[in-house]
């Protein structure tokens, strides 16, 4: 009876959960897949899945954890299913006309495209680290991989991104 009451209470909060976490879920999918339409589809499916599993959600914080975990899984599955790399290959990323300045929108877009070319797991690790500001231990728990693997993915991805940016004249300033 208590469980039923709790489920009904969270059921009532579903619209609130959607509104609160829509940007997080959509952005995780979009940064990972680099395709707005596909990201929207994935995000919708994630929320439908949340609605079907509301009975197992214990709190809004648990909902956030659950949403991150399921979005990461769905985005990786979608990427594997489509068997496609980002629409713009690394070689096609435009060279900057001038050296990037602070908060340069071109640098931001280049970074997003470079992140989208990383392999699946390192890509998700980078997105969870810098979009969601999660600690390596939290990322490890979400993706069910060792913390050492998360740290290693982060280090390697950062050095790869640094190298690619330097090649485009967008290195350290």
């Amino acid at each position, binding site marked *: 009876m208590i469980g039923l009451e709790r489920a009904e209470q969270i059921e009532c909060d579903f619209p609130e959960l*959607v509104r609160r976490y829509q940007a997080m879920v959509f952005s995780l999918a979009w940064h990972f897949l680099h395709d707005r339409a596909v990201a*929207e589809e994935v995000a919708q499916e994630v929320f439908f899945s949340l*609605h079907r599993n509301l009975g197992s959600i214990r709190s809004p914080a648990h909902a956030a954890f659950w949403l991150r975990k399921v979005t990461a899984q769905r985005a990786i599955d979608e990427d594997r299913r489509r068997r496609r790399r980002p629409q713009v290959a690394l070689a096609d990323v435009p060279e900057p006309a001038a050296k990037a300045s602070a908060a340069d929108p071109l640098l931001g877009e280049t970074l997003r495209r470079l*992140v989208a070319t990383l392999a699946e797991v390192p890509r998700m690790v980078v997105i969870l680290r810098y979009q969601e500001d999660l600690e390596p231990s939290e990322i490890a728990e979400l993706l069910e991989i060792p913390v050492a693997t998360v740290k290693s993915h982060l280090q390697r991805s950062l050095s790869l991104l640094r190298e690619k940016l330097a090649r485009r004249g967008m290195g350290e300033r």
Partner: protein
Amino acid sequence: MDWLELELKRALAPRDPPPGFADRILGRKPGFHARRWMAAAAAVIVIASAGYGYRWRQGLEAKRQVMLAVRIVALKTSHIQAQVKELTR
């Protein structure tokens, strides 16, 4: 955090989904489809039950008519038998 990590945080900051995203989700929650299918299934069951009930009643009526016919035939037969007995006496 070094400059690259700061730039990554900026580049990967959460973005709002397309306009109407939440409304589209709340407008077609999976339960909505399930409820629609359940209503359709219930309607099919009601129609099938009504049809079956109608046929069942038709069967009962046919059975009643057959029994009546049998009784009439039995009555006529016994009447004829009585007349034959009367004539042959």
